[in-house]
């Protein structure tokens, strides 16, 4: 049947491939579903990632087609609200063939894992990605404990 170890090896490779496809099944399903028009009151627009970097949080949000004047960010304690308005209109003199992007107003509120210092928050917008850098408030910062 299997005369060489490499035959076995190849069989396990094929099984590993199948397993990785199954592993990705749920995340892929989620990913593609997320790219359907997501305006209709699902409350998860814009999509965000949150990273914790020691004494600050970094929130990254997908906001394609929005300029900085269209966005509004409010922070109080550990409560964060991103709101905005997107207007997509056909350029003057053009007929629309296909409109998938659409105009919308949105608000999303998020609860951060800890309070942040709202005076020191900085925001940048580049290539349709909003990045909020939020230093934690003094009480929430990690502290070095000295051992006596």
């Amino acid at each position, binding site marked *: 049947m299997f005369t*060489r*170890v*490499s035959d076995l*090896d*190849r069989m396990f*490779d*094929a099984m590993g*491939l199948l397993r*990785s*496809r199954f592993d*990705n099944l749920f*995340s*892929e399903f989620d*990913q*593609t579903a*997320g*790219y359907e*028009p997501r305006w209709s009151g699902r409350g*998860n627009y814009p*999509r*965000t*990632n*949150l*990273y*914790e*970097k*020691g004494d600050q*949080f*970094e929130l*990254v949000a*997908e*906001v*394609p*087609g*929005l*300029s900085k004047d269209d966005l509004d960010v409010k922070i109080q304690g550990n409560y964060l609200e991103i709101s905005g308005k997107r207007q*997509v209109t*056909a*350029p003057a*003199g*053009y*007929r*629309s*063939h*296909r*409109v*998938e*992007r659409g105009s919308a107003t949105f608000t999303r509120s998020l609860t951060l*894992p800890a309070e942040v210092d709202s005076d020191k928050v900085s925001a940048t*917008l580049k*290539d*349709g*990605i909003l990045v909020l850098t939020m230093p934690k408030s003094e009480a929430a910062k990690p502290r070095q404990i000295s051992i006596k």
Partner: protein
Amino acid sequence: MDHKDLTKKEPRAESTRNVPQVTPLVDIYENDDAILVHAEMPGVTKDDISVNIDNGSLTLTGVRSVVRGGASEWEEFGDVEFQRAFSVPQTIVVDKVSAEFKNGVLALHLPKSEAAKPKQIAIKAG
């Protein structure tokens, strides 16, 4: 049995890519002179976008790698490859197609050839 067989790696029959492919949302507009295509590709940089027109088919591709750092509290989007293809009429002047990328939206301008533009026919008095 030859010992080499134990360490030798056979090439895999199929290599999988872990970057999921997604379809960017587009708006398409047209007037007598041109067709416009606006595609959403948030987080892609200008250098990672390719626009190809070949034999009447227009392909847009953009690869996004999310900048990560620190521990992730939640992640709703990640690395993706935006890809979408359209068929374009032969009346498009391929040499004059222009593209612009602003705020995560790719805007393509596809001008039509002179021959394809509608013409008003003057009626002579008999």
